[in-house]
């Protein structure tokens, strides 16, 4: 089992979700996060360009069985690359080994619980 954590652009959540659903992955957790990578975004405040110190991003957490790992990563990459060309700041995908997974209602464990 793997935990896939993806940090993506705020505005690409919809297309990533669509792409994941198409790939058969419907169980995801989404949160709003801020941070900074190499990307610089500009906002305007009373006629001045300002560069916020933190950029808002979306963080997806997806727990998958090993055989779904590549498919998930592929779905996220496919959805995000279509729109941003060479611009930096598309985000990152982290894959972490997942030790245990328990479905709270039934107490099922492991692969079956995901």
């Amino acid at each position, binding site marked *: 089992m793997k935990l896939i954590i993806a940090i993506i652009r705020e*505005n690409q959540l919809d*297309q990533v*979700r669509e792409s994941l659903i198409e790939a058969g992955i419907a169980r995801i957790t989404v949160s709003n996060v*801020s941070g900074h990578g190499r990307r610089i*975004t500009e906002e305007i405040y009373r006629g001045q360009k300002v560069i916020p110190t*933190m950029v*808002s991003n979306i963080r997806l957490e997806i727990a998958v069985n090993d055989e779904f790992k590549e498919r998930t990563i592929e779905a996220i990459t496919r959805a995000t690359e279509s729109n941003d060309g060479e611009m930096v700041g598309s985000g990152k995908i982290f894959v972490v080994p997942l030790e245990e997974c328990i479905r709270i209602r039934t107490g099922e464990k492991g692969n079956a619980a995901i």
Partner: protein
Amino acid sequence: MKKIYSLMFLLFGYQSFAGDEAAIDTGATAWMLTSTTLVLLMIPGLAMFYGGLVRTKNVLGTMMHSFTAMGIMTLLWVICGYSMAFGPNILGGWFGWSPDYFLLQGIDDVITDGIPEYVFAMFQGKFAIITPAIIAGAFAERISFKGYCIFIAVWGILIYNPLCHWVWASDGYLFNLGADGAIDFAGGTVVHISAGISGLVAALYLGARKQHPHLPMQPNNLVMTMIGVGLLWVGWFGFNAGSSIESGLSTAQALTVTQIAAAAGALAWILIEGFHQGKATALGFASGILAGLVAITPAAGVVQPMGAIALGIFSSGICYLAIMIKNKLGYDDTLDAFGIHGVGGIVGALLLVFFIRDSWMEDAAGLAGGTWGVIDQLGVQALAILIALAYAGVGTLLILFVLNKIVPLRATEEAEMKGLDSSYHGEKGYGMINPS
């Protein structure tokens, strides 16, 4: 001595008062000033109502649709709108024009029916602002800012001003239709039906939002929507009761039925929803308030409380149905500009004939020189509605078609994905959710 002075002052003061301003009815003027302010309050109200219903990334862009209308339509109204709407007929009655009204130059010291004409002009100007702002709900979340600004300017000049002239100017031809005119007390036809149909045409012309309808698009802030609809309800007293253009009996009648229809509409909506879906939603209550208010708008001058209750209930029921049909058909009238304003306006303008107070019908019969019945008036109402639907619908389509060749109206795919806020305004609505 002191007494004499004060007596002289009183006499002198009274005389000068009588000499300069005898024509002013201060009571009516005070109420019209209040109404003008109340109708203006509806526009930030609409901004909050619409703003809360869209997704987070479009909240500012959507609120700006209402706010920019305050800027654009106000200036246009002063330059040419008031003249086109309330000047004497030109071009065979297509609209009015009077050089006196250009930049309101000729009304600087004019008092009409006891009210300074400036007040009347500003009061009517607020209606010209809110109408295009209502349309914006139909194509929310997918129109370019520049395209929207140009669209409402052209729409205001070519659609709103002529319609307003036909219905409300004393020589407008809908004003003189039938025995005592098509009944449109406060703008059911001019504001709601015209905005509704124009919104529908624009929504169909621009197409659905990306991912509509297969991804649910949730309101970002229903709390703001509820505050907005509350402001709309409050402002509607200026809209309806102010449309009596006096401070008297008809003002009181309009105010009373406005309150009643809003309440009836709201309760009817959550009852229907409760039976249909099992939950009484806050957005349902808000929608019912609007459905009731829209339906009573044309009728506020002629119906009594029982009629107001009936109009509120029918309007909510039929609007609810209209939105279900919209969902079946799958077109993207995003915030139901047609589903509520268009449909509610039509329901109000048609069904009001069954609840007209007797004295109005007697007057109409007198004017018709004999008899005037419910069916006669129903014909007049239906004709006025059809004219408004046809004129605003076809006119909007032509405007969109021509404008789209010059300025692309639809937001680019990238702008739509990123959101209107960051694409067109370089800002974010909410900063408090994330650390920054």
